[in-house]
């Protein structure tokens, strides 16, 4: 401590700062940065698995050209996934903020209702989702075979509803993603569990003294929401936007990712798989970057 005092404050802080970051940085470099760079190299090469190890042949932009010009499935999956995400983000955010604020109120049975809202957070992954999907799918196939088109299941019924909406609106391409979003309202509700949790944690970290001041000054609840809650919550909104984008782009049910995995492990075209993965993430990166720049200009930090 004494020795450090000799240095300037900013130097000392920089030193301690780096010390805190190092353990994470080491893990990051080994398990993320290095594989990341390797995959760039893969994207520009043809990768062969030989008995003596990997054989890399540099082929330039061939993989990328193939993805954009020759591969019809990739472009199709990509546009579908991108439009879905762009429609979903605002819906998920508004819904989860709304629910988080309601859950932050005082009412009877709050603990119980809250617990139910976090269930998808706990449940929605891995094995259970797999079973849920495979069961309903099997049931659907069997049902279709026996000619029973009408369904009472909330999981299957949506299909008819979607066709109905498309027919009413006359199948305009622009309305299509919106219809899909309405159809996936269930999915949106279910996907916003984590966002609700993050928003709620954010709401709880807002000092209640600020609300007291606001009400003493004569602010209505509506005003104090926009003047206190919303600005103080803005860093959390940024977190949630980033989380939502990432979550939907890296979701295991994502068509593009499934395609990337299929190319890599079924067709064993590792180089091409890396290339389309890189294309996918460049597009995703641009979207995310635009969103982050747009929002961070409006984010309010309490320490400033």
């Amino acid at each position: 401590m004494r020795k450090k005092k000799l240095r300037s404050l900013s130097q000392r802080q920089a030193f301690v700062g780096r010390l805190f970051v190092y353990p994470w940085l080491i893990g990051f470099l080994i398990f993320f940065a290095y594989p990341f760079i390797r995959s760039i190299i893969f994207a520009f090469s043809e990768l062969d698995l030989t008995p003596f190890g990997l054989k890399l042949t540099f082929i330039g932009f061939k993989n990328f050209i193939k993805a954009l010009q020759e591969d019809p499935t990739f472009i199709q999956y990509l546009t579908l996934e991108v439009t879905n995400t762009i429609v979903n983000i605002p819906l998920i955010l508004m819904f989860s903020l709304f629910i988080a604020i309601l859950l932050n109120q005082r009412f009877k049975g709050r603990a119980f209702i809250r617990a139910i809202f976090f269930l998808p957070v706990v449940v929605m992954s891995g094995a259970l989702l797999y079973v849920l999907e495979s069961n309903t799918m099997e049931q659907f196939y069997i049902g279709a075979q026996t000619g029973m088109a009408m369904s009472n299941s909330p999981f299957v019924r949506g299909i008819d509803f979607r066709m109905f909406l498309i027919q009413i609106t006359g199948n305009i391409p622009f309305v299509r993603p919106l219809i899909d979003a309405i159809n996936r309202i269930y999915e949106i509700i279910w996907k916003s569990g984590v966002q609700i949790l993050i928003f709620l944690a954010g709401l709880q970290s807002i000092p209640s003294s600020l609300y007291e001041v606001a009400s003493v000054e004569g602010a209505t609840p509506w005003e104090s929401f926009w003047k206190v809650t919303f600005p103080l919550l803005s860093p959390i909104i940024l977190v949630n936007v980033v989380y939502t984008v990432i979550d939907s782009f890296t979701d295991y049910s994502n068509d593009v990712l499934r395609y990337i995995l299929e190319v890599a492990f079924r067709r064993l075209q590792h180089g091409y798989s890396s290339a389309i993965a890189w294309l996918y993430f460049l597009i995703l990166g641009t979207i995310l970057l635009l969103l982050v720049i747009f929002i961070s200009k409006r984010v309010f930090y309490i320490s400033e």
Partner: protein
Amino acid sequence: MKERKVNRSFWGNLVISVVLTVVAVFMALPLVYSIMNAFKPLDELFLFPPRLFVRRPTLKNFSDLFYLMGTSFVPFSRYLFNSIFISFFGTLGHVLIASMAAYPLAKHKFPGSKFLFNLVIFSLMFSGYVTNIPRFIIMAKLRLLDSYLSLILPYIGATLGLFLMKQFMEQIPDSYIESARIDGANEFKIWWYVIMPNVKPAWLTLILFSFREIWNDTYTPSLYIHNEALKPFSLGLTYIQQGGFVRAGAGAAAAVLMLIPSIIIFIITQSNVVETMKSAGIKG
């Protein structure tokens, strides 16, 4: 809009309760459905259209499952131990190291911190699936394949936790840190006694996420672990679920078993979150 407004009208309360109840029912439905599935006899499982509630509840699915467990090559207690071990240390590493790194990133602004944080955001959107092959090669080079470490160590460099913790730490007023510094606390003490208690909701949330992710992960272990005795519970259960129509019942039961630890963690962290919320009101 917050806790203070207790004297809300009766109708206001009613509207809130009704809206929340409707959405809550929606949210609970898949869970109820899958729990119900675990108690359905085979003919009811494949009924079309599917029914939410079970008609003739049976425990046969569970007895099938335990029979399958008993006849497996490796005892299921071993799978269970593996999973608990990996999930515990993976979560611990993720939460501790991410929050350590988040503190200077949020509060010190040392040279290069901004670049580092941009790197974190950049890496967040890069799905782990894509770097699988190079990462596998690294694991092989470090001789970590077929060891617990191959499943635990990557969480040390995890970026989600760092991002989450940094965002929350930024909300802490600088005056807290300054007053601690004046009182003679070193940086480690500030981090542990000032920063961490103030972001308790954040790291409890992170524990929940992280545990859930590691516990349910079947993909990573299937790549790195080939020794049957080191495989986690989730992988063991997947084998049962992949058994097809005949094993559908046991699979449904297995899914419910899989859920229990996550729900326990959830209950523990949840009650703590409520506690923190109460104290957060006084902190101001």
